[in-house]
């Protein structure tokens, strides 16, 4: 049994302080961490669905891995209680706020009327201290979802939980055992402090940069010292870091599984031969997880609450706010580790599937941390040498801009659907193309040749010898509900300036932008071009995002879509529910620093 989060990253100040204080705190606060092993975060779904739930929002003092926080919680635990509903029911949830500040609960991925979506400013004015707000809506969908606060930084501090909706018809994925696996992070650093630190120093939490000490290893990997040096100089000339994988790392985060730190080892029981359904939810603030269960094949049967044709995999990446349901069938009378390493490999969340309580499975070693490449820079598949001279950090891009009905076509003609549109004389589609984003205070780069990366499992997972899920494999079990072609395409660039820690779209943060207006009933294609070097899990409230991944009418319905760095992807949206909706990156500090838009359907 290792205790990785203590060893890793050396002695940060936080760790130093909490390390000193932990003994005393634990002694004076008997069994505070017990809250984490209480029934609410056991991952066990309530035995029966209900159409009525009460949630009490209050402060709870919680200690985990020596990190104590006076956290806003639902029902006194982190995560909050698992809510179970039945499809077709009209449900009411009474949310009582006992905090001394306003709160809110957003039902992530649930299609509700806009006034029930729980976003202060867009849906309602929030739930005032002492007030009870009753959410009431009809559930048209089924599957695995989650809920979280949309007020201030409450979500980053622990105000979230899982939500399970039973299908009306018999569940094709019914199993002998059914667990929620809620992935998250825990820290005692206040979210505002994290943001403030990132504003002063963007790599504040990154302790795995390229250094003189790591140079010999890079030279070996690159083939020569010259090649390694050239690559370094290229990155440093761009004033960027190839090691920029996650903004906030295991230096302060303890990664959790159902609210359990790795050493607490959450356990789910099974009898050999049983089918076990695991409902993975990434409810973290800033962390992508790469999940596997060594020794077991996982059958991915649901993505973002919607059934898909089963895909057998060894591993999958789950972006912030996504959900995946997998089925495993352990045959042996032994323990299996659920191993979810953070994308930057600074830590992991872990749990165990075992025939008996108290068993421990061996943990695999962590993979090497990914390093960003020219693909992430939006340079397509160019080699580093040739790409650098073409890298446009400030010049004019007007030559690259397409116009008219060809605008849907990818720059280097790879995107066949754009070609088809023009050849088949389909009704002319209106294209809102802002063109390449400006290089300005809020945006430091442009993806010159964004490529389709939906076939890639993501940075750090390519060619790792395992079968890793990618977006192209997601195929819905039934055709989409709206098969009309889109009449409009909205192209959006995801932009940011890591150095100043500003995020936005089209080189503008939220406060400098207008709303995206959709006509009620309109069918729209959203095309996202990622001009940053990071993944962004983009979440559209209230409406489905139907990912165009080559599956035709069986394209998967998602609520959160990862846009990989240097990539271009698109999804279709039917604007069938009127109101004001939030549309944002679900990395919480990206969202709050500007990668957010208001979508108005009217």
């Amino acid at each position, binding site marked *: 049994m290792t205790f990785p989060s203590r060893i890793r990253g050396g*002695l*940060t*100040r*936080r760790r*130093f302080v909490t390390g000193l204080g932990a003994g005393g705190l634990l002694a004076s606060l008997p069994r505070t961490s017990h809250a984490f092993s209480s029934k609410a975060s056991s991952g066990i779904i309530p035995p029966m669905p209900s159409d009525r739930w009460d949630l009490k929002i209050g402060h709870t003092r919680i200690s985990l891995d020596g990190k104590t926080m006076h956290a806003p919680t639902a029902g006194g635990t982190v995560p909050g209680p698992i809510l179970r509903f039945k499809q077709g029911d009209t449900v009411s949830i009474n949310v009582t706020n006992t905090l001394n500040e306003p709160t809110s609960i957003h039902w992530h991925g649930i299609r509700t009327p806009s006034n029930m979506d729980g*976003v*202060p*400013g*867009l*849906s*309602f*004015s*929030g739930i005032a201290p002492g007030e009870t707000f009753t959410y009431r809506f009809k559930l048209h969908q089924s599957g695995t979802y989650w809920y979280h606060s*949309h007020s*201030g930084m409450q979500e980053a501090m622990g105000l979230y939980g899982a939500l399970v909706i039973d299908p009306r018809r018999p569940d094709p994925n019914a199993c002998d055992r059914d667990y929620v696996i809620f992935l998250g992070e825990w820290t005692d650093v206040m979210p505002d402090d994290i943001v*403030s*630190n990132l*504003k*002063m*120093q963007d790599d*504040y939490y990154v302790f795995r*940069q390229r*250094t*003189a*000490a790591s140079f010999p290893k890079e030279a070996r990997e690159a083939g020569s010292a010259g090649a390694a040096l050239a690559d370094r*100089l290229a990155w440093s*000339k761009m*004033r960027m870091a190839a090691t920029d994988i996650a903004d906030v790392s295991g230096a302060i985060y303890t990664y959790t599984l159902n609210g359990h730190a790795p050493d607490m080892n959450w356990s789910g029981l099974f009898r050999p031969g049983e089918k076990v359904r695991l409902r993975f939810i990434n409810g973290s603030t800033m962390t992508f997880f790469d999940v596997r269960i060594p020794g077991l094949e996982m059958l991915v049967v649901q993505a973002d609450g919607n059934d898909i044709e089963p895909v057998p995999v060894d591993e999958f990446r789950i972006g912030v706010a996504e959900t995946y349901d997998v089925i495993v069938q352990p045959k042996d009378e032994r323990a299996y580790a659920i191993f979810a390493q953070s994308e930057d490999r600074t830590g992991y969340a872990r749990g165990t599937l075992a025939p008996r309580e108290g068993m421990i499975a061996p943990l695999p070693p962590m993979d090497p941390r990914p390093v960003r490449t020219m693909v992430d820079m939006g340079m397509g598949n160019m080699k580093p040498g040739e790409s650098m001279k073409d890298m446009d950090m400030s010049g004019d891009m007007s030559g690259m801009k397409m116009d008219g009905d060809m605008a849907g076509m990818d720059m280097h003609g790879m995107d066949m659907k754009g070609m088809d549109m023009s050849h088949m004389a389909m009704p002319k589609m209106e294209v*809102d*193309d*802002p*063109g390449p984003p*400006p290089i*300005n*205070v*809020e945006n*430091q780069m442009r993806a010159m040749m964004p490529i389709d990366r939906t076939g890639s499992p993501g940075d750090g997972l390519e060619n790792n010898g395992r079968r890793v899920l990618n977006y192209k494999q997601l195929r819905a079990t039934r055709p989409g509900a709206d098969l009309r072609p889109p009449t409009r395409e*909205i192209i959006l660039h995801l932009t940011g*300036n890591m*150095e*100043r820690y*500003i995020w936005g779209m*089209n080189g*503008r*943060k*939220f*406060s*400098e*932008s*207008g*709303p995206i207006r959709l006509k009620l009933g309109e069918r729209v294609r959203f095309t996202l071009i990622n001009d940053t070097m990071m993944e962004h899990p983009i979440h559209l409230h209230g409406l489905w995002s139907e990912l165009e991944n080559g599956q035709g009418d069986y394209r998967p319905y998602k609520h959160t879509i990862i846009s990989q760095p240097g990539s271009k992807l698109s999804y279709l949206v039917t604007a069938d529910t009127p109101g*004001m909706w939030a549309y*944002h990156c679900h990395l919480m500090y990206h969202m*709050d*620093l*500007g990668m*957010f*838009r*208001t979508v*108005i359907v009217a």
Partner: protein
Amino acid sequence: MKHALSLTVLALAALSGTARADQPTYHAADAPEATPVVYIGNIKPAMDQGTWLHGIFNQLEGRYAPGGTDFRWDGEAWFGGDYNKIWLKSEGTLEKGRLSDGDHELLYTRSISPYWNLQGGVRMDLDDGPTRTWGAFGIEGLALYEFEFGATAYVSDRGRFAARIEGSYDFLLTNRLILQPQAEFNFYTKSDAGRQAGAGLSDVDAGLRLRYELWRKFAPYVAVTYSGYLTQARRIAHDQHDDTGSVRFSLGVRSWF
């Protein structure tokens, strides 16, 4: 004083004109509309207009010499948002109970590009020597290859001009052990014997500091520093029987909040 103020006014006027040079045409999610969205309860769903307060001592050190150790500081603090900030810079050397090289600036700072800021404001030379007041205008930011760089021009209340160029670079030996070369050069158009300033390149202050980041905000360091006068200023210092330049072994702490 009049010159200093007028330069500052000019600087500020220039700065305010740099706001968003490239206004694109309207696209979805671009420009705010003529009739802004009315948010329920006037609650903005994302708070991207925050202000922050930070301060840093890049140098806070003792410079050892057999005759007596000098104490030197060089730091700055800023408050503001993504585009507009107020900076306070301060540096000085305490030498045998006498404060020299005391230079303090209050600057309005405007972000103009991904990595660069324009600055304009006032500089006060305030120490045990004669006091001087300057208007200041400069540029500050991150140059190619991640060099920290700053260049500032000054015009004094007596109609004189000066300039300062400073830069530093962080070599990561490991993720916590960082070697930082740093240098600052001062230029003047006319000599000012009272402040030991000479026409032309007047003085240089440089250091090679090896710090260990115990945590990000607290890093003790050892350093070799050099402080000295050049050309005409060197003669002035020499005539005043002052130290014209010396290499010192130094110990200090880099810290910020």
